[in-house]
């Protein structure tokens, strides 16, 4: 393997990791605030892809498409919390399955509207296809660079929201104790809805970014849910920075493994996760809080 191909693999690995990171941070925020996660997070990403595609076909400008995807997914997040999470909040593991049930409804809706087949996705930078550019002999898709930069930017916003805003503090309070938060005047229910809204928006943004470099079809979600989940676990479920690093690592491991053994490439990432959890039962990075 020469240097140029290593760079290429690393770039697309990081891009993949960026997508996983956005999905995984969605798990993080929902889990931290509500102790539940959306096991259809990947399907929300898929929905993000299709909504993006729909508006691109309407020839709307780039930024407007982005805004509409955010709005759309925020709405879906609110509905999701109300239908599939709140009613089973006290019922143990039920949320895993109501999440999957909701995801099936999303899949079926997408099939009904857009059909049950893969959709061609145009490049963000003009043209019907994603084209590689060459920098010093290294062929790189500009979309992948765009994904890496965008996911960094989204992460920055996300961390700013968590650490610097009053809402982020309210999140901390609800995560610590909903009772304590409520006696300080925080509307806990609204915070929980907001958490799911943010989780869904993160999925939507990742869908928006991911579309051009993948095969967009209605049943692509489950795999992404699981990879995002794996990334969150790898980093440590309560540590947002760890999750981000874990997601990038997962993307890299996966891409390099599939070069080494094309037959069992995706098995390697799961073996890595098992190995990590054997030695560090709560993820690579220490959980922020007990």
């Amino acid at each position, binding site marked *: 393997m020469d240097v140029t191909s290593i760079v290429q693999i690393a770039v697309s690995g990081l891009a993949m990791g960026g997508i996983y990171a956005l999905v995984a941070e969605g798990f993080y925020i929902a889990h931290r605030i509500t102790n539940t996660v959306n096991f259809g997070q990947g399907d929300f990403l898929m929905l993000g892809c299709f909504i993006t595609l729909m508006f691109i076909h309407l020839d709307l400008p780039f930024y407007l498409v982005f805004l509409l995807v955010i709005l759309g997914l925020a709405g879906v997040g609110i509905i999701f919390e109300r239908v599939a999470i709140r009613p*089973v909040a006290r*019922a143990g593991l039920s949320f895993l*399955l109501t999440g999957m049930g909701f995801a099936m409804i999303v899949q079926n809706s997408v*099939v009904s509207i857009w059909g049950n087949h893969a959709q061609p996705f145009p490049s963000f930078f003009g043209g019907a296809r994603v084209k590689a550019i060459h920098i010093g002999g290294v062929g790189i898709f500009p979309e992948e660079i765009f994904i890496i930069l965008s996911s960094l930017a989204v992460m920055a916003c996300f961390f700013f929201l968590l650490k610097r805003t009053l809402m982020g503090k309210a999140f901390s309070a609800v995560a610590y104790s909903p009772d304590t938060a409520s006696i300080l005047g925080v509307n806990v229910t609204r915070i929980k809805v907001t958490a799911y809204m943010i989780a869904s928006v993160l999925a939507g943004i990742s869908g928006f970014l991911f579309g051009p470099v993948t095969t967009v079809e209605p049943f692509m979600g489950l795999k992404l849910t699981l990879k995002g989940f794996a990334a969150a676990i790898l980093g440590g479920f309560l540590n947002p920075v760890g999750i981000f690093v874990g997601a990038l690592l997962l993307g890299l491991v996966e891409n390099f493994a599939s070069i080494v053994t094309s037959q*069992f490439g995706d098995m390697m990432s799961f073996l890595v996760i*098992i190995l990590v959890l054997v030695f560090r039962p709560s993820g690579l990075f220490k959980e922020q809080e007990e």
Partner: protein
Amino acid sequence: MKGYFVMTNKSTSSWVYGLYRLGPIILVLSFPLFFRGEYVLGLVQTICYYSMAVIGLNILIGYTGQISLGQSGFMAVGAYTSALLATKWGWPLWVTFPFSALTSALVGFLIALPVIRTRGLYLAMMTLAFGFVVEILTQRWIDLTGGTMGIYGVPTPTLFGREVGPLGYFYLVAVTWAILQWIADNLVESRWGKMLAALMHSEEAAKSVGISVNRQKVLAFVVSAAYTGIAGFFLAHQTGYLNSDSFTIHTSIFFLVALLIGGSGSRWGPLVGATVLTLINQVLAGLYEYRFFLYGGTIIAVLVLLPDGIMGVMEKKIRSFLRDRAEPLTEGNWKEAKDIGTLLAIQDQRSSDEGILKIRKLLRAFGGLIAVNDVDLTVRRGQIHAIIGPNGAGKSTLINLITGNLEAQHGSIIFEGLQLNGLSPDRRGKLGIARTFQNLQLFDGLSVLDNVVLGFYRHFETGPVAYALSLPSSYREERDFKRRALTLLRFLGIDRLANVTVNDLSYGHQKLVEIARALALRPNLLLLDEAVAGLNRSEIKEVSGLLEQLRHAGMTILLIEHNIDFIMRASDRVSVFNFGIKIAEGSPQEVQDDPGVIEAYIGRGDGVHTLEKVRQKQHRSPAMTHSPTPDEEKYRDDAPLLSVNGLSVRYDKAEVLREMDFEVRQNELVCLIGANGAGKTTFVRAISGLAPIVKGQAAFEGVALKGVEPYQIARLGIAHVPQGRQVIPDLTVMGNLELGSYRFHGKDRRKVSQLIEEVFERFPILHRRQTQLAGSLSGGEQQLLAISRALMMAPKFIMMDEPSLGLAPLVVEEIMEAALGLAEIGITVLLVEQAATLALAISDKAYVLQNGEIIMKGTGHELYKNPDIIKGYLGG
């Protein structure tokens, strides 16, 4: 839930019992009598082997609380083991059958070893990853498995050289299922099932009775894997063809959905769930376009409408019907036991004078705080040795070091000549060290009797085969321990509660059950962590009587307690701790007379003196008192700010507050005192909207509070400083303060910064610590922060729940001064305290709460001087 009952002769209940145990089995086995169609039989057959897998999952999720998303992996192992042995090496199926079960069990064992170290979502991920690895291997390791193309010519079972045919195969599957169901029923009804339930509800308590939690979890995984592997075997030999499509993540999800829809933790949930889901799949296959709408919708609807699954609710009803009609258990031969000593065959240890427990130079620190500092302690055989000391003295840490829940950083603990360092809690439990927990750790969901029977764990002798097959030996043993447990309960005066689920008991009774469970270990050393905290006087008397009996029998007891009266009466020897150091030791009398002890523990006279001076000074400075704003003038001075009439609050079945009348007027400092568990915190929580008011009314400035959301109540101007301070540990001091003014942010930034300034002026220490994380503050600083955070709400009324809890006397004075200071600026204060002396000294008005009722009220001064309170209620 999983109670054991002896059947009566009454015909209806034995019919119900018979139907409940055997009905579904008979139904399935007699199926071919009514339907002979191959399609229908095939469907029932599929349901049967799916059920096997779901039963296996039920043992994990329903009875052990461990999730697995990788069951398809075990199924694949079972299926391919048998299929490959049969096709490649031509092994007969009656040999490959046990092989495939054993191989899956072995894989289950290997997976379980790392898996049980993880929890919750990590555990889910571990199993998910395992499932994926197997899935990918079955798909891609084509040389071995044939991948998606599959293996052809997998043999089907034969009998006397002839193929068994569809009906024969049906019976093979159905009978195996019935046997596996029967074994699983035996297992979960046996003490193993109760052990699993125990560790599911409290691992710590399970370890304390000597259950090796990890071993049981691994065992649950092994059983579950074997069941699922057997399901795989039947899948493999059904049609003569096997490919990898059957072992995807979707299969694992199918099992999980089936279990939750059927009812996890119920007997027939797996069968019902597998049936419902299989049928739905059949019906939906025709509705291709809407298939997932309906499938997804059904899952959500069932889980929302029937959170315990289809069988969950139904089985609970059947079980309580049966239990009500069950023949009562008798004590058998144990009825003749004269006292606890004979019943438990306690060895009289007083014969020897040497120490049973020797602690040398023991040290344990948490971060910068040294909880137990270089402690030497010897407990002599047959003595009741008490440890006392104020909150935070390190008493509970010491107990946890002895039981192995914490490891010492330095020093040694020697029990019966054996070095305990490094031994796990369950090993120490097996050695005969029994304990109770400061915050009760009972096995929820189990009956009182089962809780106590589990205490006998280390004395059980029958093995797993005996109880899996429900052999007479295991039945006899269980019955004997049940009888003994019942006798033990009689000695504690609670035998009539034997069949009650522990969750439904009063606090006092729960404490007694925990002591009974600890006694059931027949311990050589009994550790009681706050045995009588929160008990009423008659209950305390009961425990005292019990200790007297135990002392008489010669048991060694190490006792932690706050109630000095109780200690002085009950113990032979007392050690006094303060801030992690043993400051005195001797007979109760010696300790009581030790001036150092009085100063550290009992002496708070100085504080009262200073605070009273502060208070008098304030009353002499009318210039500083509150002048009402125009807004507040609406409420005349004589109208109460908070008025409470006939308030009752209930948690589950227990009525925590009864018909309480209470009143706080503008600008008063009112205190509410009472023992631990009297209902003080519940009252404050009810006012805040955190505990539901069932009867009566509470109104603040005329606004009714019943049914109002907590955050809305907060916005009315009621601030609540919760018990245990509850500062948000991962936010800075500043962050916590900003949260306090949540309701002003974005609207009134100036007010917020003004409030922050005022708070910093009042408590300069917080100013200095403003960028520090709240979790790293000392207890006293955290309390000041909690109060300040409440002040940031600019409240009219502030409720403080036990602000002195766990703080050194000097710090307590500081906090009380702060409370006085609030009254001074016109904030009305409700002070809730257990340590009543100081609170009474500074309040205008005081109420005394006992067992959910106000038993006394008056001015603070009156009650402070009232000897009845000091003597009869405060104890000491």
